[in-house]
């Protein structure tokens, strides 16, 4: 407690400081004019924030700017790849937000001026704001591997944003011969949806087992361990012969042959440190950083992610700009859709309070995340978070993984709850 940070200072000095900060945070108190919030990005974070601000204070004018006309979720896109679900079922329009009074603009944000408080777009439009919420998701490090860049996604899709590439990967899988090899290259930490690559391997294995049982999946990981590893491994043993001679899935950690240096599109190979592996399908999920606009505006640190204050998600670099979702450094909250939604609600409450000249209320956050390993086999991880001493902290004793000794009945329920999670979180966000 020896260092007096801005936050500590705020806490100890109490009411007098609150008045001062309110003045500092809301400079243009334009005599009674409606407050303006501009939300950049219409994914889970941005859409939830826009909706909940309108619900919490209908006097606030909210504009959401997003280049795509519809949003495809990343979560549950693995069920599209396995053929269990149609691509349309993970596609959502912004009509719901419009009903809540959000102005939705289809355009790409090209710049944000933090001093003048203006967002400008590719089409040359300007949007002044009192507070701006940036929820840009992730962008990809296209220079991470030799021979790999954005131009090859038609042939080697990452399919890490739900949408056209999800369909490409699905089509490739449907067209693959029995006995084919699918190579999955998960990224190093940190990245969006930590269990996602392993759920993807599970869903692909489920499809192959039923349709092309001589096929194999090789996961060339850039890490030594992964999310829900014990539960995935257990599920793979049960359903896909994992660790037997007949295993459908082979997982190579970064030090046991997983680490790759190059991708060759022409002969469909991945160059590992030990072996060059040929795939009928190659799914490289590239290393990640905050979405492009966060870099343009200078909201990122030297690692490429956005530092924020955990109570309000206000950038610690630019005032009056809040960064939420995958782009934000909100650890111990993970980079997940549920976490983005939870951060968005905390931020909506903070923004409404701050616009009104008050103090941000005490936040509370939750993450829940499901993965479906096979039909009737769902697993989950959950955590409750609080805000203490200027930091987001896990609530001790809460959360954790589905138990390893779970009964079949409970695993089946978790699959049903996974699908309920999908329906409810998307309705909460876009409905």
């Amino acid at each position, binding site marked *: 407690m020896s260092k007096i940070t801005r936050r500590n200072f705020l806490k100890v000095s109490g009411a007098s400081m609150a008045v001062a900060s309110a003045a500092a945070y809301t400079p243009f108190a334009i005599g009674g004019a409606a407050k303006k919030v501009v939300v950049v990005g219409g994914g889970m974070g941005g859409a939830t924030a826009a909706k*909940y601000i309108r619900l919490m204070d209908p006097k606030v004018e909210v504009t959401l700017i997003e280049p795509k006309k519809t949003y495809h979720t990343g979560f549950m896109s693995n069920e599209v790849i396995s053929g269990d679900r149609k691509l349309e079922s993970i596609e959502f329009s912004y009509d719901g937000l419009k009903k809540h009074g959000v102005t939705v603009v289809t355009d790409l944000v090209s710049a944000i001026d933090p001093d003048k408080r203006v967002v400008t777009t590719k089409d040359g439009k300007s949007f002044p704001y009192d507070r701006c919420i940036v929820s840009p998701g992730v962008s990809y490090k296209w220079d991470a591997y030799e021979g790999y860049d954005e131009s090859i996604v038609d042939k080697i899709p990452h399919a890490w944003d739900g949408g056209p590439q999800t369909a490409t990967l699905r089509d490739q899988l449907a067209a693959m011969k029995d006995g084919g090899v699918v190579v999955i290259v998960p990224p190093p930490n940190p990245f969006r949806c930590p269990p996602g690559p392993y759920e993807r391997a599970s869903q692909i294995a489920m499809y192959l087992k039923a349709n092309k049982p001589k096929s194999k999946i090789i996961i060339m990981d850039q890490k030594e361990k992964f999310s829900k590893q014990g539960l995935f491994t257990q599920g793979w043993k049960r359903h896909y012969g994992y660790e037997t001679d007949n295993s459908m899935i082979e997982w190579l950690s970064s030090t046991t042959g997983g680490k790759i240096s190059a991708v060759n599109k022409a002969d469909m190979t991945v160059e590992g440190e030990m072996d060059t592996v040929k795939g009928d399908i190659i799914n490289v999920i590239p290393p990640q950083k905050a979405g492009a606009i966060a870099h343009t505006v200078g909201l990122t640190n030297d690692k490429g992610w956005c530092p924020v204050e955990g109570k309000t998600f206000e950038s610690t670099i630019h005032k009056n700009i809040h960064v939420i979702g995958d782009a934000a450094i909100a650890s111990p909250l993970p980079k997940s859709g*549920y976490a983005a*939604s*939870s951060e968005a*609600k*905390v931020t909506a*409450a903070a923004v409404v309070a701050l616009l009104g000249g008050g*103090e941000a*209320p*005490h*936040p*509370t*956050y*939750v993450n*829940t995340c499901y993965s479906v390993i096979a039909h009737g086999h769902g697993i*989950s991880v*959950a*955590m*409750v*978070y*609080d805000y203490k001493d200027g930091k987001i902290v896990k*609530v001790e*004793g*809460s*959360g*954790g993984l*589905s138990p390893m000794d*779970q009964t079949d*009945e*409970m695993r089946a*329920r*978790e699959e*049903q*709850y996974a*699908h*309920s*999670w999908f*329906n*409810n*979180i998307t*309705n*909460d966000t876009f*409905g």
Partner: protein
Amino acid sequence: MGTKIKMMSAAVLTSGMLLSGAATASGASAEALGITCAGCHGFNGSSTGPATPHLAGASQEYVVEMMQGYKDGSIASTIMGRIAKGYSDEQFALMGEFFAKQKLTKPKQEFDAKLAKKGAKLHDKYCEKCHAEGGTSAEDDSGILAAQWVPYLKYSFADFHGDGRQMPKKMKKKMKKLNAKEGDAGIEALLNFYAEAK
């Protein structure tokens, strides 16, 4: 046991009311806590299914008792035990306060009209005393059964009949009679009746 829970909840209720008045100073408000549940339990507690139960319209005490049961393990769960361990009794009371105020948006579920008719009669005979008004009422701090998601009701029946959840004394008696007279077909009829509720 019943009285113990009642007394505990009464204490929680009082502190809950105190807390919600001064939520911003001391902790997260009822609304802040309540809206974090939406991702699984639906916007304002009306679940879009297929399995996660609605919370909208549940009584405050019902929410508190369920969360306490999940937390101490006396009610079986997949994920709720892990989540409930993240909150205090005061916070359960605030969540209950939030959900008690919400109006349930009833979903459309498939049902067999003939079975539903039979279920209506069985409900009147065996369930109505506590789950009043055709299972739509949250009074008596019973769970709302009408329009609840059928898979969730099935899980609950299974837990009650196994060792996943204890039935209150009155329910145990009624359930014994229902099982003896109607068997699984009786439960099936009830489920169709609850699914029919609009």
